[in-house]
C-alpha cells in the first residue's frame, strides 16, 4: 500500500542532477504560495520562489534551500528545474547571515533607486538558507 503513494521526484540543476528518487510528498514555495504535492496531483507548471524544499521519502525527510527555477508537476512525476539549490551542508552560514543583514539594511533605508523586489528576493534567499541550517 505504501508503495502506491510514491512518485518520482527529480531535481535538476544546470550543473548536475541534484536529487532523484521515489518520494511520497514534496513541499516548496512558489510565486503563488507554498504548495505540497502528493501523487496524482493535477498536471501543473509553477514558478519557484526562494524557500525550503522538503522531500518526504519512505525513510524520512530531507530538506534543501531552493532559490530559483520552476517545477513541472505530472501525475506520477515531479521535475524541479532549479537554477540554484543547496543541501544544508553546502551552505556558508556566515555568508547567508551577511546577505540577510545587507538585504534588511537595503529595505530599511530605501531610496527611490532601491530595487525593492531584488532586495526582498535576496532576503528571502538568505532566510531560506539560514532556516535550512536550522
Amino acid at each position, binding site marked *: 500500500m505504501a508503495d502506491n503513494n510514491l512518485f518520482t521526484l527529480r531535481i*535538476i*540543476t*544546470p*550543473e*548536475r*542532477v541534484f536529487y532523484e528518487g521515489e518520494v511520497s510528498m514534496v513541499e516548496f514555495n*512558489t*510565486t*503563488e504560495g507554498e504548495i505540497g504535492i502528493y501523487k496524482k496531483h*493535477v*498536471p*501543473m*507548471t*509553477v*514558478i519557484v520562489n526562494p524557500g525550503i524544499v522538503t522531500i518526504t521519502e519512505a525513510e524520512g525527510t530531507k530538506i534543501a534551500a531552493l532559490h530559483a*527555477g*520552476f517545477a*513541472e508537476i*505530472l*501525475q506520477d512525476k515531479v*521535475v524541479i*528545474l532549479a*537554477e*540554484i539549490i543547496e543541501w544544508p551542508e553546502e551552505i556558508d552560514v556566515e555568508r547567508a547571515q551577511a546577505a540577510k543583514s545587507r538585504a534588511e539594511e537595503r529595505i530599511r533605508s530605501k531610496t527611490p533607486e532601491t530595487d525593492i523586489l531584488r532586495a526582498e528576493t535576496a532576503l528571502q534567499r538568505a532566510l531560506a538558507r539560514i532556516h535550512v541550517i536550522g
Partner: protein
Amino acid sequence: MASMRDIKRRKGSIQSTQQITKAMKLVSTVKLQRAKQNAEKSGNYFHCMFDTVNSILKKTGSLDHKYLKSGQSGKKAVIVITSNRGLAGGYNSNVIKLITRGELAGEDLAIYAVGKKGREALQRQYEIKADYSDVIEEPAYVDAMVISKDVLEAFSKGEISEIYLAYTAFKNTVVHVPTLLKLLPVAISEESEKMGEETAVGDDRAPMNFEPEDEEALNLLIPKYITSLIYGGMIEAVASENGARMQAMDSATSNAEEMIENLTLLYNRARQGSITQELTEIIAGANAIS
C-alpha cells in the same frame, strides 16, 4: 647542402616545438574529458527546459508578448562565443566566418563577445557592446545569468531587435559544428513542434495548467530559457574548443615527427659525406708524401 650544424639546430628547434604541441595535446585531452562530462550532465536540464518552454509556447501560440515578436527598431545582437587562446585550428575563425559571411553578413550588428579571439576579430567591423571574455575559462551558470540579463534589458529597452547566439556545437570528439541560433524573439522550429506533438500524444493525459497565468509564466520562464541556452552554448563551446585544439595539436605533433625524420636522414647523409671527404683528403695527402 646545408651544413651539419644547421641541420642539427633546426632539428633541435622542431623537437622542442613537438614537445610543446604534445604537452598541449595532453592538456586539452584532459580538459576535453571534463568539458564533455559537464556537457552531458547539464544536457538533462536543457532538454526539460526546452520541452517545457515549447509546450507553453504551443499553448499560447497567438499570445501578443514582448518576447515573441522582434523589436521595431535597433540592431541585431549576436552573442559570440569563442576562446581566449589560439592554436585551436579553425575553431575561432569558423565562428567568426559564420558572422561575417553568414546570413547576417553586411548588417549592422551589436556584438556581445565571450572570448578574446572573437572580440579581436570583430571589433574592427562591428560595435562591441560588452565583453565577457573571462567567463569562458570556467563557465558557470551565474555567468550566463549575467549575460542574459544584459541582453534582455537591451531588448526590452528597444536597443536591439533580435538576439542571436553564435557558438560551436559539440557533436562528438571530432565533429564540431559552428552554429548560429536565434534566441529572441522565441520561435518554435518545425522540428521541435513535431517532437512536441509526439510527447503530447505519448504522456500528456491531462492538459497542463500554469500557475501563474500563461503570460506571467512566460515573463519568468523566457529569461531562464535564454540563460540556459547561453549556458549550454558556453559549455559546448568549451568542449569543442578543447576538441579542436586536441586535433590541431595532434596533427602538429605528427607533422613535427615527419619533419624530424626527414632532417635526421639529411643529417646522416651530410655526416657520411663529410667523413668520406675527410678520408679522401687523408688518402690523397698520404699518397702525395710517398
